[in-house]
């Protein structure tokens, strides 16, 4: 018997005032995998992720997450998933511990105090727990947002630019941590990023979006081979500037 996908997106369309932000996107993501969603600004990555989370209703098409249709059946699965995004923030006046306590309660986390200590230790937040979230540096805030995203040990983790404001050392540390988390929890991770080396390192599959459509979808190695490039960044530029299409047409 085949394992059902963690995420299944079928002919997904989102139109804002006649402008399609997402235009007929279909893909499915296997449980326990890390998939990267690549694309320039306005490619439709955030809109796609928002529809997967149930924050946005599609104009047409279907999103199924952990067996539940989004956004209609979201309450059946929201406690099994979580997300981190630079577009939302933690309340700034509350301390890190207070924020994590509130979200832990919202997600129904058992032994919450232990879970907060465990995450604080794992994400190097122990010294920050009693500081107001608004007084942290950008890198510290990202780690706190990650702790919030992991408070319920989600089976499905949606990450939008998770290392955007981190220094290279901390970013590398966060990536290692995510890899370990995925392995140990057998979690599914969908990651939207502009950081090509991050996608190359973490993801076993890359979906490249442009103008609301999927331009390519493959493993990083096969994409590099197909475009005849050495880095994903070069592949990304080829797709963004239409060179991939021209090359295919020439061939």
């Amino acid at each position, binding site marked *: 018997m085949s394992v059902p996908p963690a995420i299944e997106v079928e002919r997904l369309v989102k139109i*804002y005032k006649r402008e399609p932000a997402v235009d007929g996107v279909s893909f499915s993501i296997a449980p326990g995998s890390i998939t990267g969603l690549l694309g320039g600004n306005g490619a439709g990555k*955030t*809109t796609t992720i*928002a529809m997967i*989370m*149930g*924050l*946005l*209703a599609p104009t047409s098409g279907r999103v199924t997450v952990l067996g539940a249709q989004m*956004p*209609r*059946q979201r*309450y*059946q699965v*929201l*406690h099994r998933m*979580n*997300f981190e*995004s630079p*577009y*939302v*923030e*933690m*309340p*700034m*006046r*509350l*301390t890190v511990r*207070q924020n994590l*306590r*509130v*979200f*832990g*309660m*919202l*997600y*129904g986390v058992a032994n919450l105090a232990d879970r907060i200590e465990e995450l604080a230790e794992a994400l190097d937040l122990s010294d920050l727990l009693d500081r*107001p979230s608004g007084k942290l540096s950008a890198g510290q805030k990202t780690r706190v947002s990650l702790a*919030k995203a992991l408070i319920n040990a989600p089976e499905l983790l949606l990450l939008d630019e998770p290392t955007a404001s981190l220094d290279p050392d901390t970013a590398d540390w966060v990536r290692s941590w995510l890899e370990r988390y995925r392995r140990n929890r057998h979690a599914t991770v969908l990651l939207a990023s502009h950081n090509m080396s991050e996608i190359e390192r973490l993801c076993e599959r890359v979906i490249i979006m442009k103008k609301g459509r999927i331009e390519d979808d493959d493993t990083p190695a096969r994409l590099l081979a197909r475009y005849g490039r050495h880095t994903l960044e070069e592949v990304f530029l080829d797709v963004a500037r239409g060179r991939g299409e021209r090359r295919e047409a020439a061939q």
Partner: protein
Amino acid sequence: MTARRLKAAFAFSPRRVAAMMLRYWYLLRSSWPRLVELVYWPTVQMITWGFLQYYVMQKAGFFARAGGTLIGAVLLWDILFRGQLGFSISFLEEMWSRNMGNLMMSPLRPFEFILALMVMSVVRLLIGVIPVTVLALAFFGFNLYGLGFALVAFFFNLMLTSWAVGIFVSGLVLRNGLGAENLAWTIMFFFLPLTCVYYPVTTLPTWLQPLSWLLPPTYVFEGMRALLIEHTFLPHLMLESLALNVVFFAAGTFGFLKLLQSARRNGSLMQTGE
């Protein structure tokens, strides 16, 4: 809608409600200016109107008999106004801190969110109004608690109206972003002249009186005047107010859910700015 989906959508969790109340309590106690603000305006209002009433009582025989109606009206108006503001401000805190996405993505149900906001509006109101009622007693000899059971009926009806309006305004802000924030501060003033806070309904032009009687607080303010001037508690006024409040509350909640649905369609939940 399947039974499983219905059960998931309406599964109530007191822990999630407590989480939201804890969040607002942390916020409230972390800022002394917020606490001072809760007491400041009700105090200023009560003192101003108290002195005005004191002056009028010395000059006019009717007001001499109707001792306390102005201060009573000010205090009851504050319950209505501060109740709605307390609800709306807690909601706006989520918009200001760009936290709405986190909440909407969490298992928190809309009615749990609303319940937490309702409880916090009572907490904020009590912090603001209790000291003022003590000052009213000390400065002007007006004992609001002397109204007894009537005060409970007044309070309950006014809170229901304030929640209904607060819920609807929150939906508008959710759907239209912080550009609609001003409504939260001003919408209740629409009720001020029409609900006849400081004067009897008969003062209004005849054609406007039916509209006034469609608003639940009108019955409370009329009831207060009957109690203070004629020393008669009119329970039928409170029952009529309650019946209208049930309609207002249901309409406010329905409006909120529809606006939330619309926000989910047009992407406002992702953009919580203006």
